[in-house]
């Protein structure tokens, strides 16, 4: 018995060591952001700098191209997109899962097939269309398409299918229509799934570099990933500054992860296994 306890402790220690390897880039990033330039590549690595330098973080947050600005842009894009996506996905998912009507399966097949189309196919025509519609190089070029996520429809549909049909039937007998059933019964039951979708969607939009790269030109409109790239191009020898900027880009995601860990992990697990 004691031997198995010992075994378990040793294995835990080994796994802790490897998990440290997994998060070491983050630790190195934070540590470097507080060092002096001379200390960056010092070996052996000094994890805790002798003197904490705040100047690099100051440069990132108050400099010429301040991250405050990028944060506000990113928040605007990510929040509006996420709210729209959660709302529109759950509406459509309800239609696809709990109402029988003509053409539903055909429409669902169209959704399925669109999942195969890679973003690379869509970038050029979207670029031309957005230019024509006057939303190229505005936040709307990210927000409007961002409100439509096929993945979100699938995820919510999966959950709605798991709610017993009898619940709707009972409500029908009481004279409730689909809108009442959706807003008063089904949606409140789906809170954990909604939270999962919201968190995953928010993190997508926060990290979205590719769409911003294609659809934004003006520096004033840059979201965090583009702002970060810009900072790094302008300060390509200032390694401490680069790491302070990277820290600024990652911290919100770490906070989101720590707060919504349960939803994220369970959401990711269930969406793939049952999908």
């Amino acid at each position: 018995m004691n031997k198995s306890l010992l075994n378990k402790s040793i294995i835990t220690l080994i796994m802790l060591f490897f998990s440290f390897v997994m998060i070491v880039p983050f630790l190195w990033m934070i540590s470097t952001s507080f060092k002096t330039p001379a200390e960056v590549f010092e070996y052996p690595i000094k994890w805790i700098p002798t003197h904490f330098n705040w100047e690099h973080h100051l440069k990132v947050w108050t400099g010429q191209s301040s991250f405050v600005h990028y944060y506000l842009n990113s928040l605007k894009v990510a929040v509006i997109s996420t709210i729209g996506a959660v709302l529109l996905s759950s509406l459509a998912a309800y239609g696809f899962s709990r109402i029988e009507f003509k053409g539903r399966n055909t429409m669902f097949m169209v959704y399925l097939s669109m999942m195969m189309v890679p973003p690379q196919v869509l970038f050029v025509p979207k670029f031309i269309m957005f230019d024509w519609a006057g939303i190229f190089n505005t936040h709307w070029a990210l927000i409007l398409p961002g409100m439509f996520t096929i993945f979100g429809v699938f995820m919510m549909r999966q959950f709605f299918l798991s709610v017993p049909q009898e619940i709707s039937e009972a409500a029908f007998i009481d004279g409730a229509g689909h809108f009442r059933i959706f807003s008063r019964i089904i949606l409140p039951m789906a809170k954990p799934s909604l939270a999962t979708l919201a968190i995953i969607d928010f993190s997508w939009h926060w990290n979205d570099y590719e769409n911003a790269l294609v659809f934004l030109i003006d520096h004033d409109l840059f979201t965090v990933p583009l702002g970060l790239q810009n900072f790094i191009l302008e300060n390509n020898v200032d390694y401490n500054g680069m790491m302070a900027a990277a820290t600024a880009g990652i911290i919100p995601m770490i906070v989101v992860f720590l707060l919504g860990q349960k939803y994220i992990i369970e959401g990711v697990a269930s969406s793939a296994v049952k999908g």
Partner: protein
Amino acid sequence: MKLSWMKRQQYLGYLFIGPNMIGVILFFIIPAIYSFYLMFTDYKFMSPDTHFIGLANIQKMLGDEVFYIAIKNTLMFLLSVPVSIGLAFIVAVILNRSVYLKKLLRALYFMPYITSGVAVAFVWMLLFHPNNGPINGILRSIGIANPPGWLSTMETSMYAIDIIWIWFMLGYNMIIYLAALQEVSGELLEAAKIDGARTWQTVRSILWPLVSPTTFLLLITGLIMSIKQFGIIQAITQGGPGNSTTVLSLFIYQNAFRYYEMGYASAVSWALFLIIMIFTVIQWLGQKRWVHY
């Protein structure tokens, strides 16, 4: 009376799906059709006129040396998928049974997946710094006099990208495996124990076959997800040095938005679609076979 009300309720289906459908039409279906048309044109951004050129773009693609380099780089990039899945399986098996602090460990291994983006790409850029980077610092300290140049040489750059991608995907694969392993019955494992099966035997001949549908799913979805990825590579290397990290999806992006060869880029993007479609069909066929273990 009641019947007609029920019937009207059915029509609400269109109202529920309608708003989402409008977006799907505007941002998926119309662009996809438009792109299919562009494939047969010499469309260039800002150029005054566009001609229908038939299959010329596809001919150009098949004769383009860089296209084949991109295919080769894509295959090298996709190598990271099975490696990441294999490592994730090992981690998941261990975390599933034989450790303390399970939740903490699970969160730590998963963290790169959720927090990663361009920001982390820049961190790796410094970690891989050929002369003074900490990775080569460690390699030198354990006696490797000439550590690889990682992102800075054509021979090694794709491997460096692979390492970053393995690191990124590991946590995701692990979470899916953990979910699958939880469904394996404890009785089965107890029975194996009574039969005197060693741990690695249990893993090899019971767990690995039982989770094979999950492995298959992870492999296909991982390949599809990876083949579409170009952000991290664009941020770190822009496809360089030379064309050594130009994967297919990045090749498309660069043709479209660096050289503005948008007709050509559309043609190549449909080649990418074709590959994804083949993976998807394999997935459908495989899922049918694997409904029963």
